[in-house]
């Protein structure tokens, strides 16, 4: 060991920029040289955002409905008319009035629900009896059906109430004295309940999670595969310095991505931006630190690139979409799954982005809890990858 190396080895506490910068330069060259990957990393987020922002909608309407009308009177037709007029249902004409055809179409996914209007509907109503309308739903699409059944319930209740009132007043009674409680829905922060307003920030978080973890997931394992790993070990470079040098170029790249995505969200999708760009920048940095760190630790642990990619794909794709609160609200999940959701970085960024985008007066501390989690996890990821690097040396 030369005296120089000894000296470098001794100042263990301090990180030396002189050693970090060459690593950064090398990593930067790596990024620039692989033009196709660079283009994908820069363009893919925008393309994906535009594509999915149009595709993803939580509004469920135009549910395909089969109708079997055994009564065939003007009242039964009026009821069907109420269903179509609601905009939630579309009556399938191919299987109209044939129970057999309806059942077959339901099985083959052509319709999702069947409305059955019984015989004697008209006469029973005239006689003041209760009439049961049958609604059959295809449970293999439970989300659509549970919402669709709610719509049916509301439509039928409304028709029923009107029928009663009409009957009462037709018999010469005054119905104005019946009190009515009218629910008045008011939506704050996103008055038209435009789903793009909240889908765009959510998608942005998921896409950035994928891109950033993918970017770093190969950086270290690549060195292992190409046998440059031993050479790295032989330099006086400290593990943490290596990690920092590896991460900084990607932070820059991802910041460009976020800028692009946010611009597209604001300019193309007209998502209101109520918060401050400085707060957005701070939380984005915290998130990138964490997400890139996650990729880094996968890279440090994996044996080869195939394992690293598999780990990243399994660890980020489905969890970021399903466990982040993007699709399913975390509060409704079982407690154990809620606990697991704490290690999904996208979860924190989604909350931060949605709040910064849509709520006016969001300051640095409005979502500070999310920020802390990102910081803590990021630190754990990066020190752990530095540690695992050290272990390999020993």
């Amino acid at each position, binding site marked *: 060991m030369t005296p120089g190396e000894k000296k470098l080895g001794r100042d263990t506490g301090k990180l030396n920029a002189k050693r970090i910068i060459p690593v950064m330069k090398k990593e930067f060259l790596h990024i620039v040289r692989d033009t196709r990957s660079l283009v994908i990393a820069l363009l893919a987020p925008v393309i994906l955002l535009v594509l999915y922002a149009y595709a993803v909608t939580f509004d469920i309407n135009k549910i395909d409905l089969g109708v079997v009308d055994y009564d065939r009177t003007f009242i039964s037709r009026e009821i069907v008319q109420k269903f179509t007029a609601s905009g939630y249902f579309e009556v399938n004409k191919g299987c109209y009035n044939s129970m057999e055809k309806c059942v077959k179409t339901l099985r083959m996914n052509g319709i999702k629900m069947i409305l059955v209007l019984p015989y004697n509907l008209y006469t029973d109503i005239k006689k003041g009896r209760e009439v049961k309308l049958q609604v059959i739903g295809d*449970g293999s699409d439970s*989300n659509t059906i549970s919402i669709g059944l709610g719509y049916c319930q509301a439509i039928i209740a409304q028709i029923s109430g009107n029928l009663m009132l009409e009957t009462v007043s037709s018999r010469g009674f005054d119905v104005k004295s019946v009190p009515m*409680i009218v629910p008045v829905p008011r939506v704050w922060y996103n008055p038209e309940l435009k789903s793009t307003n*909240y889908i765009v920030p959510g998608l942005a978080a998921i896409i950035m999670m994928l891109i950033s973890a993918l970017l770093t997931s190969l950086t270290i394992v690549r060195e292992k595969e190409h046998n440059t790993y031993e050479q790295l070990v032989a330099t006086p470079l400290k593990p943490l310095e290596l990690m920092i040098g590896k991460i900084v170029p990607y932070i820059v790249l991802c910041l460009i991505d976020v800028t692009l995505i946010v611009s597209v969200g604001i300019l193309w999708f007209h998502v209101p931006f109520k918060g401050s760009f400085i707060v957005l920048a701070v939380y984005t940095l915290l998130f990138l630190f964490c997400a890139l760190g996650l990729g880094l630790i996968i890279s440090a642990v994996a044996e080869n690139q195939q394992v690293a990619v598999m780990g990243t794909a399994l660890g980020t794709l489905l969890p970021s979409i399903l466990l982040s609160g993007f699709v399913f609200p975390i509060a409704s999940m079982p407690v154990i799954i809620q606990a697991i959701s704490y290690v999904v970085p996208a979860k924190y960024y989604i909350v931060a982005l949605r709040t910064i985008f849509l709520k006016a007066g969001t300051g640095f501390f409005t979502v500070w809890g999310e920020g802390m989690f990102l910081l803590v996890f990021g630190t754990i990821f990066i020190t752990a990858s530095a540690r695992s690097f050290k272990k390999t040396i020993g």
Partner: protein
Amino acid sequence: MGGLREFFVPVRHMMKKEFIEMRRSKLIIMLVIAPILQAIVFGYVATTDITHVPTMICDEDSSAKSRALADKFLNSEYFNIVNFTRDPSAIQGELGSNKAKVCIRIPKDFEENLKKGKSIQVQIIGDGTDSNSATQTMSRAQLIIMAFSEQIFADKMAVMKPAVGPLPSLAMEERVWYNPELASANDMVPGVIGLILTIITLVIMSLSIVREKESGNIEQMVVTPITPLQIIVGKIIPYIFLGLLDIVLVVIVCGIIFKTPFEGSFMLLLALSFLMIMVNLGIGIFISTISATQQQAMFSSIFIMMPNILLSGFLFPIKNMPLVLQWLTYLIPMRYYMVIIRGIFLKGLGFMELLPEASALFIYGLVIFTLAIKAFRKTVS
């Protein structure tokens, strides 16, 4: 037959190599354990019912009747009352800081106006930043308030009834087929199985050939008598095997844990899953041959995966997408497999009923494999 045996000798060596590598890198553990774990976790996640929404009640009336309405929310599993107040100025702070997602605001003179038979407005203030939850939660709240109103209406009617005579009414009789309890796990689990199968086979395959290129192995293979076709066959067989094994394991585990019904034929599921695996492997090989580095292959395969999740009808109904995107979904193999796997699991669909989806996958596989093998031949020579 001799020709066939001759063909498979190098193939067997190729397979052996692939298996050894999988074992050495512990990839095999990941490929067997991860799918099971993920299917379990995501089976539980998929509660489309939005329950326990943090709710605030602002009761400005504070009367017996207004409390009766508040109790309806208190007793509902959909709402979790986190704040009960008389002061409407507190609403802003609670909703702004994400502490409550919805606020029910009962106005002053609620009870008095009820007695007078006046119409009363009850505000439901929702946090629109999460418009999915907001829409669902607010319609639940509306249903509760409407039911409360109907109860009062019915009480009043009951008083009038002796004078008015029998009144007609409509009731709904709901029947849910194939998944009577509407347990979302029952349709999520099959979907998740399909997705994990795709992730594993497609992503793994897309790296496997480019890896050989990067490490220079491909040149060495070219000088041996092994043909391009033999290389590909040797590479895909282990993954076909693993994919089918995963299906069997996940179906068993989820059947035990979630009691997911399995109405159809298991052999049909395996046969059609084989088609799906072939399509994914074909896409993987194709990506692999046109990529120069594993990084490129990774990016390409992940970006092909995303539409499989978001555009396949797994989470979002295809019917509600813009028309152009609906056409685009025909290019996504998962779209067909979703119908297949959910149909076999929950509806017990048979081969004839799944023929359109099966033939779509078959043609898809044929086309993509022809392209992939052509591209691979080019790379090798």
